[in-house]
């Protein structure tokens, strides 16, 4: 309560002052109502019925209307209303169906005036006529509305809603004869007080009960309704059909709505369950409340503006047994806390970004991307600047960035995964091969990394350890903001920032490679894989015919020895972030190297004006003395961490596998396991089952290793007798026949066996494929329409 404000408003003679304050009631309140002069408030509930005067600093209890030894149910109020013409007159609706009027002018302690016991069920609402002193309206659970003349003992007229309970009744403020009633079944009816036989008009306003309604104090045609369906709707009743003009979606069922005085579009609401706050909405801005009062600890049951013409004071009663006066200055403004930027991906990788206009134009570092965007969409919305409490300009910009399909593809990932060699050959060869693969894919940095790894680790005897001159560019950490705007090439389906960055300039972005030796190995293993790991999803095996070509690493060998000396320095424009290199920075070299960006980047360079990257260059050895490979462990570790950080977990894992024990100890187990699982997950998403299985096999983490040991059983039926094959091998123990006969050539199948899950028949992969080209029925003649996926 530090920020309590004291507000003084002058209203035609009488002044209202006050601050945010509260007082404890003895019992939960059900409803509150204010006296015409805004100086007193009445609080009613099941066990409370009191009048408080609103002083400047506090509420003061003036009168307890709940008198008598054993208060009857007549005091158990569901609603209370204070007459706006006569300050001595109150009416309450009791839960037992009685409507009671109270006359404060009575000299006795008991102010109870009249008792109407005409309703059969709980009365939900009572309402005085705004200008007529003696006219009182009630709406009850029994589906009837009754109009009472306080000078008579009984009701003057009864209106039957012809439906379930009436939840609210409200006299129109301007229309003398009209009142609105809302119903539990979602309907709103308009009645003419003179015609009790039939409603004038009826429309369905909500799905489920309409708990409340309120006529607009100024605009005679507007009626606001709130329902259990969590909506507040504003209806224009001037036309023939009630027209919904505004709709506010809240987060809980709406118990009360009250138009804010003097503010045409503002409305206060509170909810019946779960949500304890009071909101004031601008109905034209239905997504965020313009003000919010969060004082109550249980649901708010009654809200009322303190004075008919004062928009700054709101009174509220709650189930938490407190009565509050809220001052608008102390309200919290959710809009201050809202994040005014929005970012969203579409299914196809397009990205929409909305932000305040000012924010975007103030972005001095980059030129506006109007050029980049193929289909930019702008819209602006200006709010009425005269509107009060409109602190934040609401004009904003929405931009949509389209994905470039070609460059956004993840081809490089798949190809790298397939072509990388991870094991089975000497380290140097593996590195060279992988470097070549990366090079072919225009991923120079990756290729360079491989080459360096080879230099660092392989054949220490022959290769004098290269002297690595790492010159560090400074700017590479400044990527994020800039890059996030360069969205042209986002790979579909991948949404993190590092991807954004990579795809932009494939040539030098850090990617991960994989190898084809994996597929070679898989060739031998194929049968086993199919039989064990992946039950039946890819019965037509994934072995591709062209893999062997990948092994022709023709021009790789010549460089075996001198490579590190021949390598032109321009070939090393690597972006690198390693910070721990102590070697001297060679600025000259740095400069010489940096222009070497790939052509790919040249296209995109305009999009990313500031794109600095660090360089690693390898110069001729300055030091003759060899360093033990261990010396580089921290560097390599950082390299791997860097790649993983950039989202290129492929590289991290591949290097990890290739280097094996050389590096493993430098990286903690958990990180390794994390990389492995990420990479395997990626591979499986691209359906690179063989590669992923190989990675699993080659991994040294126990947790990963056991991944392909799970659920390795494949249940099959004998194609002859259709029973499950229980024993090992291919002979069915029931019919004593070989179960794995090819249905096309009738020979025993060795190697790849594919079969239909419906009829258990199958055969050689090639044969079945050929067969299915011409026929869709089972080759065994069983009549089954075979399906192979």
């Amino acid at each position: 309560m530090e920020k309590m404000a004291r507000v003084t408003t002058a209203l035609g003679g009488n002044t209202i002052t006050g601050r945010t304050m509260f007082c404890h009631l003895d019992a939960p309140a059900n409803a509150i109502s204010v006296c015409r002069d805004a100086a007193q408030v009445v609080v009613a509930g099941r066990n409370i019925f009191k009048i408080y005067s609103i002083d400047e600093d506090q509420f003061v209890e003036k009168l307890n209307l709940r008198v008598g030894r054993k208060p009857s149910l007549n005091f158990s109020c569901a609603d209370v209303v204070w007459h706006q013409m006569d300050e001595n007159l109150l009416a309450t609706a009791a839960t037992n169906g009685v409507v009671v009027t109270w006359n404060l002018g009575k000299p006795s302690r008991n102010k109870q005036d009249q008792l109407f016991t005409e309703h059969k069920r709980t009365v939900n609402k009572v309402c005085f006529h705004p200008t007529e002193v003696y006219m009182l309206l009630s709406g009850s659970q029994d589906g009837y509305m009754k109009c009472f003349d306080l000078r008579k003992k009984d009701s003057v007229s009864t209106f039957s809603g012809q439906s379930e309970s009436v939840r609210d009744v409200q006299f129109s403020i301007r229309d003398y004869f009209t009142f609105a009633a809302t119903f539990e079944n979602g309907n709103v009816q308009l009645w003419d007080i003179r015609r009790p036989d039939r409603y004038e008009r009826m429309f369905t306003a909500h799905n489920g009960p309409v708990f409340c309604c309120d006529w607009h104090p100024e605009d005679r045609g507007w009626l606001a309704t709130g329902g259990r369906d969590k909506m507040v709707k504003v209806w224009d009743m001037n036309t023939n059909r009630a027209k919904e003009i505004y709709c506010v979606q809240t987060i809980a069922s709406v118990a009360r709505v009250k138009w804010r005085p003097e503010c045409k579009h503002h409305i206060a609401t509170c909810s019946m369950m779960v949500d304890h706050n009071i909101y004031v909405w601008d109905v034209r801005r239905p997504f965020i409340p313009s003000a919010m009062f969060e004082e109550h600890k249980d649901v708010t049951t009654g809200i009322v503006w303190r004075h008919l013409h004062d928009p700054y004071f709101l009174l509220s009663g709650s189930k938490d047994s407190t009565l509050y006066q809220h001052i608008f200055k102390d309200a919290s403004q959710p809009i201050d806390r809202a994040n005014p930027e929005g970012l969203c991906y579409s299914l196809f990788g397009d990205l929409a970004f909305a932000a305040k206009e000012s924010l975007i134009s103030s972005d001095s570092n980059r030129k506006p991307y109007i050029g980049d965007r193929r289909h930019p969409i702008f819209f602006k919305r200006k709010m009425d600047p005269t509107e009060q409490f409109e602190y934040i300009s609401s004009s904003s910009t929405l931009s949509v960035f389209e994905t470039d399909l070609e460059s956004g593809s993840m081809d490089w990932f798949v190809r790298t995964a397939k072509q990388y060699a991870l094991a089975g050959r000497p380290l140097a060869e593996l590195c060279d091969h992988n470097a070549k693969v990366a090079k072919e894919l225009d991923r120079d940095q990756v290729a360079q990394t491989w080459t360096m790894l080879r230099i660092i680790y392989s054949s220490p005897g022959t290769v004098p350890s290269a002297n690595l001159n790492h010159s560090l560019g400074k700017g590479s950490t400044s990527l994020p903001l800039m890059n996030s705007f360069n969205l042209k090439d986002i790979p579909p389906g991948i949404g993190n920032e590092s991807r954004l960055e990579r795809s932009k300039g494939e040539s030098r972005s850090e990617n991960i490679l994989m190898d084809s030796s994996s597929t070679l190995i898989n060739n031998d293993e194929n049968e086993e894989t199919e039989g064990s790991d992946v039950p039946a999803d890819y019965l037509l095996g994934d072995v591709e015919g062209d893999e062997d070509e990948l092994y022709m690493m023709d021009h790789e060998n010549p460089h075996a020895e001198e490579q590190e000396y021949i390598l032109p320095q321009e070939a090393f424009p690597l972006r690198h972030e390693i910070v721990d290199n102590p070697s001297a920075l060679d600025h000259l070299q740095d400069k010489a190297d940096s222009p070497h960006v790939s052509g790919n980047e040249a296209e995109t360079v305009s999009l990313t004006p500031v794109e600095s990257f660090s360089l690693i260059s390898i110069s001729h050895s300055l030091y003759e003395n060899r360093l033990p490979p261990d010396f580089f462990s921290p560097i390599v570790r950082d390299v791997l961490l860097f790649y993983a950080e950039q989202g290129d977990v492929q590289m991290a894992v591949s290097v990890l596998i290739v280097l094996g024990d050389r590096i493993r100890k430098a990286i903690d187990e958990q990180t390794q396991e994390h990389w492995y699982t990420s990479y395997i997950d990626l591979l499986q998403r691209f359906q690179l089952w063989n590669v992923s299985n190989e990675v699993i096999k080659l991994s040294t983490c126990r947790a990963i290793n056991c991944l392909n040991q799970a659920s390795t059983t494949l249940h099959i039926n004998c194609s002859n007798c259709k029973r499950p094959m229980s024993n090992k091998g291919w002979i069915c123990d029931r019919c004593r026949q070989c179960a794995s006969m090819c249905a096309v050539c009738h020979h025993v199948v060795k190697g790849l066996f594919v079969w239909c899950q419906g009829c258990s028949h199958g055969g050689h992969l090639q044969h079945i494929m050929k067969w299915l080209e011409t026929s869709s029925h089972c080759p065994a003649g069983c009549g089954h329409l075979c399906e192979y996926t």
Partner: protein
Amino acid sequence: MEEREGEVRWDGLCSRDAGTRGAALENVRQAVLRRTAEISPAEEDPSPESSQGRSASATARGRLNEMLARLLMLSKRCPFRDVREKSESILSSVQELGIRIPRPLGHGPSRFIPEKEILQVGNEDARMHTFADSFAALGHLDNITLVMVFHPQYLESFLKTQHYLLQMDGPLPLHYRHYIGIMAAARHQCSYLVNLHVNDFLHVGGDPKWLNGLENAPHKLQNLGELNKILAHQPWLITKEHIERLLKTEEHSWSLAELIHAVVLLTHYHSLASFTFGCGISPEIHCEGGHTFRLPSVSNYCICDVTNGNHGVDEMHVSPTGSISTTESFCEVEALMEKMKQLQECRDEEEASQEEMATRFEREKRESMFVCCSEDEESAPTRDVSRHFEDTSYGYKGFSRHGMHVPTFRVQDYSWEDHGYSLVNRLYPDVGQLIDEKFHIAYNLTYNTMAMHKDVDTSTLRRAIWNYIHCMFGIRYDDYDYGEINQLLDRSFKVYIKTVVCTPEKTTKRMYDSFWRQFKHSEKVHVNLLLIEARMQAELLYALRAITHYMT
């Protein structure tokens, strides 16, 4: 899908397309005949087979029997004529091969209601399409559906809700849902529902070990046991501490959404158990106890047949007392109608004071404790269902009787429409709507008939029943005069209501017969619908109020 032995595909039968059904039936036929062929030689010369072989053939025999029982069910209960006829022909062809086929025990879905009163499956009727819907969804028509179809409007809503709770999107995994259903039904020893859901539970891949008792289920479900117990018998004792205990245990804690789902399931099955006993639902034909392979012989009549009035011996429904009391009970109806009329017309005649009204509620509440079935009534056949819950002794206890004073629950302070609905719908979207609809339909259902009279406004009577049930749970409506209950509900009716709602397992046919003797069976089923919905709402109100308290 790979077809495994013993799993004949039945799902094709649920299709609405006659061709698909035909194909599926043909498959079934072949499977049955194949199995029959496998078995018959083994039965003919058992000698050369090893003991292993014999046990294998015994299990094969068991599987065949399962299939035959299923076929028997189809031949009786499938809404599609072609399936019924074909199933029957398969059965008879099997019989010709010398294999014993099962026959149904009892003659109808209910032990209380003569079969001829119940809509025959196969009659061309507008209600058939409801059956077809249900059949298509479940693969069988259960007896509950067959009895509820007296009130098709309600049935539709009921099935929709149940389907949503069990099959559609929800926070709980499928096998949990069935297991919770089993837990809830077991509280009332309702073997019918337990059997039904044990099948479903296993079908969705539940662990059979859990069925050996709650202590074999995961901790999370065990924690729910306490709530289940209180909810079933003394819902007014639920406090926010109970909720907190479920939500706050570190390891096996429930999320709010899961809890709401579980609570809805629990209350649904508690009240469904009430219906099962209240209408004397007989076991499903294809479940245990619903059929026999023994040949019919005189001594073999099942008890339920006899008590049922289904059997030929006492075909006349009007029981021995009937002839004497016809006129008497005729007057009962008249008198009841007269009273209703009076209450409706001149309510203000005797204006009762507030104190009087309060006393009336208290009196009704108190009396409802003593309206109690005598304990010596034969107890329903309890089977091995008690294993699903501990502490059998913890039954319904009236509050006054044990000196406990429970503050009266005022419906005006926490009602389903205003509060409960919002909470449920918030945490388990759409279900609030479905349940709300169901309550509405049950509460407002009327045909404006009473026994032989037409154009009667039954709203006072329905409201009296509803409020009486809530009164038993301590729920008070400020705007209701509880004196009405006394005038409208006579003692035998109160006994029935009380028994069905609080201790459904003790319901007997005698109770069912002895109230409202002149009323139709459909009207008694209607009463049951009111009972179960009112009970469900009462339990829900207490549970949801506790959750609300927990949340604020």
